[in-house]
């Protein structure tokens, strides 16, 4: 993991990232020359039509998948060519995931679900420290009263709030959010979005994939993807805003 000479404020920096899926018959260019920089405290939304590469970009951002080309830094650390175990360490310490389908583990209680990232952490924490941190995060999403429940005893909105607490628990550099309201009714969806907005206001960096324009607008930086390329760069948006 090499250090790059980047702004210490920069959480994510992608240069010329592309992703090609190859099968026996054809090559699909899912992402083409993506350049992207996300700074501390940003709230970025990525939207676009189906198949434009949103999920692929989020997977690469979250080190769930590897780019075919380009360079990628998280908090100045080059993460382009990590081994699978190194990638797991970075995911654990620097990235918080929030999935559309919550991805909570049914066999574990709410507490254990939230504590899970701490248990996989390289730095071993005491049980007391884990308990304190988990309770803090559950308080942030207003779910302290459901500590002992199992996920399938909760509503969809509640489950997603637990998922947010889990994503926050290891103090990640960035929260990667994949269609957070896709499996929720509008009321629950709004509640979840409120939570995210408050987190961002308190300094959490968020990058969210959504195709709901209403929620995309809540982000301060909106990226539009089409055929694997970014249509609008943050600079352009800024310039447009300044010009108006």
């Amino acid at each position, binding site marked *: 993991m090499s250090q790059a000479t980047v702004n210490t404020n920069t959480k994510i920096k992608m240069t010329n990232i592309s992703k090609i899926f190859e099968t026996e018959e054809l090559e699909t260019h899912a992402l083409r020359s993506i350049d992207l920089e996300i700074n501390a405290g940003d709230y970025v939304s990525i939207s676009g039509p189906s198949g434009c590469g949103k999920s692929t970009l989020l997977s690469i951002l979250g080190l*769930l998948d*590897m780019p075919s080309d380009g360079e990628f830094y998280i908090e100045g650390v080059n993460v382009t060519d990590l081994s699978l175990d190194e990638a*797991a*360490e970075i995911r654990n*310490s620097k990235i918080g995931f929030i999935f559309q*389908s919550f991805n909570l583990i049914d066999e574990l209680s709410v507490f254990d679900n939230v504590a899970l*990232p701490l248990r*996989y952490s390289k730095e071993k924490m005491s049980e007391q420290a884990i308990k304190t941190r988990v309770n803090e995060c559950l308080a942030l999403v207003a779910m302290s009263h459901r500590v002992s429940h*199992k996920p399938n005893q909760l509503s969809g909105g509640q489950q997603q709030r637990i998922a947010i607490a889990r994503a926050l628990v290891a103090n990640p550099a960035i929260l990667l959010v994949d269609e957070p309201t896709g499996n929720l009714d509008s009321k629950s969806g709004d509640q979840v979005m409120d939570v995210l907005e408050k987190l961002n206001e308190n300094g959490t960096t968020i990058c969210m994939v959504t195709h709901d324009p209403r929620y995309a607008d809540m982000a301060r930086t909106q990226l539009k993807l089409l055929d694997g390329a970014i249509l609008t760069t943050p600079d352009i948006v800024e310039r447009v805003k300044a010009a108006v």
Partner: protein
Amino acid sequence: MMWHPLYLFKHAYLSLRKVPYFVISIVSSIGVTMGALLAVLTLAYLMMFKPLAYPDSDRLMKINYQRFNANSVLQTESFIYPAAELLYKSQQANKIMSDMAMLFYTEEVIVSEAMQPKFSTTYITNNWFELLAIPMALGDYPLRLDEAESYVPGAIISYKNWQSYFSGRKDILSQHIVINGISHPIIGITAENFIEPQLYKTGRDTQVWLPWKYNNSDFKEVWNFIDNQIVLVGKLHQDMTSQQAALLLAPEANEAFIKHSDIEGFYKNWNVNFHLVAIKTELSAGSINTVYVLVAGVLGLLLITATNVANLFLARIASQRKNLAISASLGAKKSQLKALVFSEALLLMIASMIFALFIAKLGLGIMQYYFSENLARVNELQLSYITFVSGVVVSFILACIFTQLSVKTIDYFSLNASLQTSGKGTATQVAIKSRVWLICSQISIAMLLVFSSGLLLQDAIRQLKQPLGFNSAQLMSIEFAIATLDWQGWSRYAPKVRELEQKLLLLPQIEDVSFSRTPLDDTLQYPLTDVKSNHKYYSLFRNVDHHYFNVLQQEILQGDGFTELDVKQQTQVLIVNQAFASILSADGNAVLGRKLLFDDKPHTVIGIVANLALPTQRNPPARFYITNFGTATFMMVKLKKNQELSREQMIKTLFEVDKQFALSKFEHMSKSIKVATFEHTLTASIAIFLAFITIFIASIGLYGILSYCIQMRRFELGTRMAIGAKGKDLFKLVLQENIKTICIGIVVSMIAFSLLAIVFSDFISLYLTLQIIPVFLVTLGLISIMSFTACYLPLKPMIKHPVIYALKGND
């Protein structure tokens, strides 16, 4: 079009190409077990149903000559020589049966051949060939082989013997062979396709048929002893039952027996009866139970394998759930999804069947090679339509079962695909319960079988490695026959044998000669009585000369061996082995010098020799040695270091001494030991094979179960990886979840073994020594490696790929 069988098979083929390990696991495990089943079914059909290839074979009966004592208890079923001839003559006169043939089975040395080979010979009345309508490759049979009464020489040779010994020479019918001083012209060769009914001994094929009258039975006029080399076969009249024929044959035979036997003494109130058994039944009688056990065994094996493979199918379906759910959502009916799954299962079973046919062919070959003396009719074994039909039926049934099991889970997966994370607690619970049961059963069965195989293997190796108590290096066991029908008594031959001894000792290769039987022949027992205490012993004994202990290098622990004088003067002395000495010394008195009555004459114990550890005996038995007359037709020859004695030289030496001395056995001791230890070698091989196959099948089973469970939890494990779990964390997780079950399986197997050890204590206690600990540890190690591998392999594709592979939920 989409559901056309060709489309389905193509789809199945393409889909299976992506999962080579899945295909290899199934085809190899089902192939091996189905192959074993097909081989055994072919054997069972042959023994139980396939008619013999002789005309009216259901009317061909083996005639058993039964004698019952005064209490009507059956004493013997073997013929007395003159009684057999009498029955045959009576048949010629009265035609009680449609036809009858007499056979006398033996082995003889062909002195006319340079190498003096020993052939399996059968003396027959000429109608034997007519009775079986034996096809001939060359020559003819009825023309020269004459009736029971006449002396007309002639020999018919088996096709195999013609090919192997006479190299298929074309002028064979102009050749003669000399047996027992009689020159027999070769008058015919049986056809290649002729299969002889092995009525005398399973695995014994005749190499030369000769006229009845030339047989050299020792009991030709003797009514007191049975001659178990005689077999009579009769053919029933069309409308007669075997019981009717037996009743008609009995009166004359009974009358003759009473006339010729001591009916006032030992044979008072005895009577003779006949028992006619269809030769087809007779041939299979000794093997039917073995076949039942084999069928049950391989069916059990197939059942275990099928259970394991069913798990692989479930894992496979689990990995395909999204595709199937998509097909279902696009309107595919359940029957159509079933057709997809069935085509894949059928394709796999067809591939397994093809592999199984190879295995079956191999299995039949192994049976013919190794068990020709244990299983009846194996010489007729070959792949038949029964093998193919059984293969097709078994494959179809298995494909249906696997499809049915897999299809049952499709609904659940369709539902599951849409409700990816929540609300699926119940189904997962069910999976956990069955997983625990399946893993536990796999581990306990595997542990039990591997542990038992380990004990068998260890014991077999111990027996094989055990020192014999004599030096077999450069030692040969040699026997000769006196090839004559005109026996002149031993006193005529003894001086010649002494001459032979001198001639042999003059050969530069030979160090020493002892006229004694090989120590591996160990059957003679004789009563001894302690002169002082009158205590009686019934111990093994051996007649030896004064060279015996020296030639064998069997250690004399106390006292002396026999001297030349002892042998010459037949001094009344004997030598006991260590085992016998410890029995004798139990009364506290000295063993040496003790007097024991042998054949009513007091013999003095002059020495104690070391025990022999013969391959057929687990513990050395008590044995004593007495002197023989210093000559015999059998001898042990010790060769000098790095020297060889050729068969030709031995034949020449024998011939120089007496033209009637025909070499009948010429074997290195090391070869005899190999033959004698074959049982242990076979046990060791079977134990290794059993352990291997158990580990293989159990590994597939465990892999199948864990693979299924891991497929079910793919999203969960993917999520764990997404939030930072590494490969080793997942491995630890899966291992932790299963270690308790694995331990329970191990404990269950040990409890089962203990119960077996209690129930079969007589048998199992032989194997229970301190050595059980390393066997247990090795078994534990193997089972642990197997379990760890079975936990790791299903995880491997997940932890060796980017996380998205697991999270996407499809290949």
